[in-house]
């Protein structure tokens, strides 16, 4: 049942038994592998080979690399071209580095202020806002009504007439 659940094949996949020996996998997976080893001759043979390989690998002596390897590494480092840095003092001086980082912020603020300042630029037209007391009020109000009455649909006009007739509050 467990083997069916994990779908273990007739022969173990590469690396599975070595990983098992290293302690990998969940409890249920490890239990399934153990069961498969017990019931399959092929699995037992492969498991024995894996154990033999692991024991041989662990028995290898721990040797340091020869001097020529270190010499090759040092030579490779020397041969790597030095990266060209734009204005090296930017990177050498922390103050400049921070200044460069905040430059976009200043740029955004500058552009925003400039835009707003341009938006408030003086209109080419001489415009005066009038009050009620200058005598144009009644006429202007009448023009608003005429504009509304002529440009709007009949129902709106009906509403406006009701408004003017019954003096509905705004």
């Amino acid at each position, binding site marked *: 049942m467990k083997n069916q659940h994990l779908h273990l094949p007739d022969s173990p996949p590469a690396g599975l038994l070595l990983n098992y020996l290293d302690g990998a996998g969940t409890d249920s997976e490890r239990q399934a592998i153990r069961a498969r080893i017990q019931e399959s001759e092929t699995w037992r043979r492969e498991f024995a080979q894996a154990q033999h390989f692991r024991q041989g690998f662990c028995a290898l002596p721990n040797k340091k690399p020869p001097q020529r390897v270190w010499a090759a590494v040092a030579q490779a480092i020397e041969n790597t071209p030095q990266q060209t840095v734009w204005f090296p003092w930017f990177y050498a001086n922390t103050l400049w580095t921070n200044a460069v980082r905040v430059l976009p912020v200043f740029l955004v603020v500058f552009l925003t202020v400039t835009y707003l300042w341009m938006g408030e630029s003086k209109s080419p*037209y*001489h415009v005066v806002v009038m009050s009620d007391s200058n005598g144009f009020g009644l006429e202007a109000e009448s023009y608003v009504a*005429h504009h509304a009455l002529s*440009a709007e649909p009949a129902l709106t*006009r009906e*509403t406006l007439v009701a408004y003017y*007739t*019954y003096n509905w509050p705004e």
Partner: protein
Amino acid sequence: MKIVTLHLICLWFVCVGGVVPCAGQEAPLDLKALLRQSMEATNNLPFTGQLIFHRRAQDQRWRTATQVQRLPSGDKRMEITYPEAAQGIVMLHDKTGLWRTPLNEEVRKTLDQDQKVDMEIFLRAYREKEILNLSRLERLGLLFKNYNITFENNEKFADRDAFQIKITGKAPHRPAVKIWIDCQTKMQLKYVRFTPDGTFEESFFFESIDLQPNFSQSAFSTEGLDQFFSYNAAKEEQEPDLDFTPIEPPAIPAGFVLRSNHRWKRGEGLVQHSVYTDGMAFLSLFQRRQTEQEIQKQKEEECSSDTIKVFERRGTKVYMREINGFRYSMVGDIAADEIYKMLSSIPATPKK
């Protein structure tokens, strides 16, 4: 079993639920044709319904509810049901003319001269336009030239399946509208208009509508109503002749054309009212002679003839310029700069 049931529910939602608002209806491909059909249907189909009208007035909104009916013959009847102050006012439009509930005499006495003028203008305009032309859309060719039409979605409205379309200006600072069009009859069920800055301006919508109604002929009786105009009284409708040659400013905003001219007499003199439109936005230019007092006052003021004076009333701005002994005033649905430009383009050469 549960999974199968879930799949079946999802399948039903995709196949049926997703198109419930306009069952069996695809998104319309030709939106211009759809809009034309909707205008035709809205202006001609017989129906009866409860029509609501909202309009923004400064920070508040007006709300009017009306019971409207249109006979197959074209006769129309509108009765205001809300607000209570206007409840019961009937407007009836038949082949003989326009009829209306008589105004209360006390109210009539309180009307000042300007309000009476407004009434006259209303009555004149009423004859020229469809009583139930809900939207301000007209001159669709011009509208298509200056505005984009886009399909929004399918939506159920007033218990009917509807297409929702949106009309927005190609030029900046133009009004926009959304319209709900009945899938079956193409009748406009709802109309919402936004100002150029995107705020709500006005809306018409049917709370309920019956497009196959049974009409009561008694509802169309003119008994007890005043006839405000008759189709036979053409002589009374003539506008006065102007005592000056009206000017047409050279710098009209892009996309706008002259729609109509009206003339009437104010206390200060004869006024010419020119209406310009780009299919949806409107622009009014009023011109009249200055009175002697106004000319004298202008001389005393420091303002030159290049000055544009702005007066605001009920959230609408009126722009005025006095030059060569004439006063030019403008009201419009467009940006102030465009109106400044139009007013400033009036030449400073004297007129005869």
